[in-house]
């Protein structure tokens, strides 16, 4: 098993992918195999009440699981019968030691580890645990199991203190919903299929300028089906999503993710969780304010706090209209130097999205055609088998009649051999298809990612529009004030109303200047985030792409060699000249050594 490639291509003892995945998780020594195994052994439903009780004993708000290892010990003591808890305890100590050692360099990682681990114990049956171990602590990920490790492992791995697993999907009675458990989420935390409150929109609202990973697609029709295959697909997608979130330098350390992973019970009933939801702008409130603004009772000037928030989120309709108008006039005309660079990045991102649409579709098609080819191989094998059967059952008549018994036997033999080989190949091709589909997954993933990237980049532009709108407001008021003063200079002594008006304008100008500063700061913050996110996104994407191409090529090599062997064997059985077989064999470079003693050679012999 040193080479993961032998795994999926093992011909006999064909293992289903799901089981592979489970085994990979269970076998992973550092992920607390005992925990996962025990979780599997003890029935989830049987486990739930105990964990529920534990959760009640340690209300998250009071105990504050983050950073307080004692709260984790409470429920631990309550369930001493579980052996794996001992194990986890040891792990936790090890992790704590590691965290302590690494604390100076990465305090957040250590904190995260403590929190996550206490969460594990609360979970009871949750399994492994989120370890902030060294990067190699993730064991040897099977290529279809985990995200490929970026080659720039040093920095990237240290920045990924969380490792999230979504596993053990099981249907909850009545609800028909997806039970999702992470390694530190209890079985009580069910119905995470929709990830309430974690819509990409809200994430991107709170984290303006960040490229929040896209949530897995919610397919209503498929969602009703709830087949095992679908559950597995959804589970894998959610796991990838959670891993991406956890790996994100900022979102991975966010309060939201922490709460999501830690809150026991139903997330929807958690006050903390709902408190996190960004205050939605009520249209009603906005409308009321708008009419007041029109008659001049309410300030028309955007205050500094609001200026830092996106217009779409604010309750200020007037502002939204102004900004929309600026946007309509072609946006901000004069752009700062670095801004144009970011705009160029956005153009590239848009182009990339187009390319990804095509590539993702092409990849899908390759997989689909491969799939069909495998199916046809099976069909042809079956058809040949039927021919052989018919020959066998009735061919004796002709053989007896014409004295061609030997030919008849050979016919049946040949047809059966070819049929068996074809059916076997069909199964192999099906597995290759599955592997290929998985390896090309990053293409689909990044296609899904692109809207978030574009949104992140757009939010910066919005901030710039806000800034520009405020600037033009300021200019208008400055002009009005100057006009007023000019008029005032003419009318000696002035009049009171005008003086009042000038006073108001001065206040508004002062406020606007503050707001502009705030908007400017917001814009610069987002621009900075954009830049670092672009850099991170590019780095991670390239790492995944590199791994993807490599895995894809390796799978295709292994698959081709395996198919080659089966076909050559069949050709040999059907009496092809050895020289001809050798010529074909020669034309394919063998990864397993010149004499076929490599991994495929041994696979063939076994």
């Amino acid at each position: 098993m040193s080479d993961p490639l032998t795994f999926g291509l093992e011909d006999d003892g064909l293992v289903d992918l799901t089981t592979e995945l489970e085994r990979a998780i269970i076998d992973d020594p550092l992920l607390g195999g005992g925990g996962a195994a025990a979780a599997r052994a003890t029935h989830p439903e049987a486990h739930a009440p105990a964990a529920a009780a534990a959760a009640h004993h340690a209300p998250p708000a009071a105990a504050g699981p983050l950073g307080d290892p004692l709260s984790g010990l409470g429920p631990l003591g309550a369930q001493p019968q579980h052996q794996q808890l001992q194990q986890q305890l040891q792990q936790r100590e090890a992790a704590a030691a590691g965290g302590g050692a690494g604390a100076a360099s990465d305090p957040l990682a250590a904190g995260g580890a403590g929190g996550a681990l206490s969460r594990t114990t609360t979970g009871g049956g949750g399994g492994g645990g989120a370890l902030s171990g060294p990067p190699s602590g993730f064991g040897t990920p099977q290529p279809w199991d985990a995200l490929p490790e970026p080659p720039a492992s040093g920095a990237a791995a240290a920045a990924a203190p969380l490792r999230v697993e979504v596993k053990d999907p099981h249907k909850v009675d009545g609800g028909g919903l997806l039970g999702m458990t992470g390694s530190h989420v209890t079985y009580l935390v069910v119905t995470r299929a929709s990830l309430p409150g974690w819509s990409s929109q809200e994430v991107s609202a709170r984290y303006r300028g960040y490229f929040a990973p896209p949530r897995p697609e919610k397919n209503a029709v498929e969602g009703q089906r709830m087949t095992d295959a679908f559950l597995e697909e959804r589970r894998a997608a959610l796991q990838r999503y959670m891993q991406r979130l956890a790996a994100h330098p900022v979102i991975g350390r966010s309060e939201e993710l922490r709460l999501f992973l830690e809150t026991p019970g139903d997330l929807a009933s958690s006050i903390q969780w709902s408190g996190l939801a960004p205050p939605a702008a009520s249209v009603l409130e906005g409308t009321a304010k708008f009419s007041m603004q029109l008659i001049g009772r309410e300030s028309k000037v955007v205050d500094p706090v609001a200026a830092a928030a996106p217009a779409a989120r604010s309750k200020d309709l007037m502002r939204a209209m102004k900004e929309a108008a600026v946007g309509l006039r072609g946006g901000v005309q004069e752009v700062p130097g670095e801004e144009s660079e970011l705009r160029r990045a956005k153009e590239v991102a848009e182009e990339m999205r187009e390319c990804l649409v095509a590539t993702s579709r092409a990849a899908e098609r390759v997989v689909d055609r491969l799939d069909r080819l495998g199916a046809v191989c099976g069909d042809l094998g079956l058809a040949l088998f039927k021919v052989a059967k018919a020959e066998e059952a009735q061919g004796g008549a002709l053989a007896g009649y014409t004295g061609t018994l030997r030919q008849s036997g050979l016919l049946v033999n040949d047809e059966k051999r070819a049929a068996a080989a074809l059916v076997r190949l069909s199964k192999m091709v099906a597995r290759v298809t599955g592997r290929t589909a998985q390896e090309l997954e990053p293409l689909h993933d990044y296609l899904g990612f692109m809207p978030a990237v574009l949104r992140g980049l757009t939010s910066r532009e919005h901030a710039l529009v806000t800034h520009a709108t405020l600037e033009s407001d300021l200019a208008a008021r400055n002009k009005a004030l100057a006009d007023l003063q000019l008029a005032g200079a003419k009318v000696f002594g002035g009049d009171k109303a005008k003086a009042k008006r000038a006073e108001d304008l001065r206040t508004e100008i002062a406020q606007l200047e503050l707001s502009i500063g705030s908007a400017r700061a917001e814009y610069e913050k987002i621009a900075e985030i954009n830049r670092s996110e672009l850099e991170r996104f590019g780095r991670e994407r390239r790492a995944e792409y590199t791994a993807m191409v490599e895995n894809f090529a390796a799978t295709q090599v292994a698959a081709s060699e395996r198919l080659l062997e089966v076909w050559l064997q069949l050709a040999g059985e059907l009496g092809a000249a050895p020289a001809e077989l050798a010529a074909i064999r020669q034309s394919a470079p063998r990864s397993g050594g010149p004499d076929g003693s490599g991994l495929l050679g041994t696979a063939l012999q076994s």
Partner: protein
Amino acid sequence: MQDPLNPFQPDGIGPGGLLSNGGGGAVGATRHASFTHPDPPGPPPPYDSVVMGDANAAAGGSGGADGGGGTRDFEIVVADPVKQGEGVSAFVSYKVRSRTNLAQYARPSNEVIRRFRDFAWLHDRLAEEKRGVIVPPLPEKNAVQKFTMGTDFIEERRRALQVFVNRVASHPELKATRALQRFLESNEDEFALEVALTTAAAGGAAKKRLDGAVGWFKGLGGAATSLVAGKSSSDAAEDPEYVKVRDYLTQLESHLGEAARQAGRLVAKETELTEALGEFGQSIEKLGRLEEGNVAEAFQQLASKAQGMSESRKGQVAQLAARFEAPIKEAVRFVRAATNVCNDRGVALAAMQAAKHDLDTKKVRYAKLRGTPGSASDKLLEAERDVTEAEGRVSKARASYEELVSTLTEELNRFQKERAADTNALLRDLALVQASLAADGAKGWSALLNELQAIQGNAPAAS
């Protein structure tokens, strides 16, 4: 499969010259044996040898024993398809080049121009002249494809026609026929005359397969149809062993038809995969242009390999179509041809029975007349003559039937032996073509893997 004689390959006449044959008519049994599988240790004869006549191995054995008495009689190539005319009346003409060592041919090598219709004429003439012989089947007449006349279709048909005419020329009964000689030798005018004459002789019914006795039988009308339609009445007199054979053939045809359909799908799916691979390469190439560094290079390599492989796969998929799909389709047609001959046999048997029945009636009438005192002597004489005539017809029908039975039995023997060899060859070719497809894949993808490693080696990722 580099044998230049393979009729499924577009090559011209092979340089190998005429191959030795198993010998003349007396060695029919050994000829047949040469079509069979050799004993397990030795490799079976290649597909082309089966189609073209005899195998080298057999030539070395029996040919030598005969003192070089027999050489392969024909080498025939169908080449240069040219589309003639436009629209509905459009057709494709082919050059039929042949070399022969049969003495009855004026020249050892001939080249004539023929179209599909002429091949069909040859087929029908042979079926008519040599009853009981399983005449090699013609490629199917596909009205839709004929209308479009794509190059693929024309090439496929050219190959199939070449296989057909070579099979005819290697058949012990058919190779010496006048029809084949006319087909290979006559220039266009002569051939047109021949076609006109034979068509006229057959009463315009080119498809007519039945000789006089059956023709007469057909005239019986209602009684005849009931006899032909139900197997029961004629089967009663039919050899029960043979009935099983016929049922087997019918079943085989349907099963083999399904296999051929799946073979067609296989080729189609291979083609689709090839196309998808090319498209994938293209889009990856575009995506790679937006990337930088190692990834850009890796994508570039992936794209070029995928596109290159898509190109090389095309030729191999065409090979798959020529060496697996076409032969398996031909095998289905062959089985159908065999069933057709079996039907002829049924018709001949029914004819014989009807003649017998007629004879019985005549006999009864004659006996009645004789038993009736005072019958007119001329009537009696007439009835007697009727009986004699009916007896003649019965013996003629019986002879015809028996000849057909013996020919068919020998033909079925030959058929099964050829089929065993052909099936073996086509399945082997499937395996071989697929193996080289896989070998190509292995080659291309591991080249990619090497390139990727080189890319990584050149510029190790900044860590």
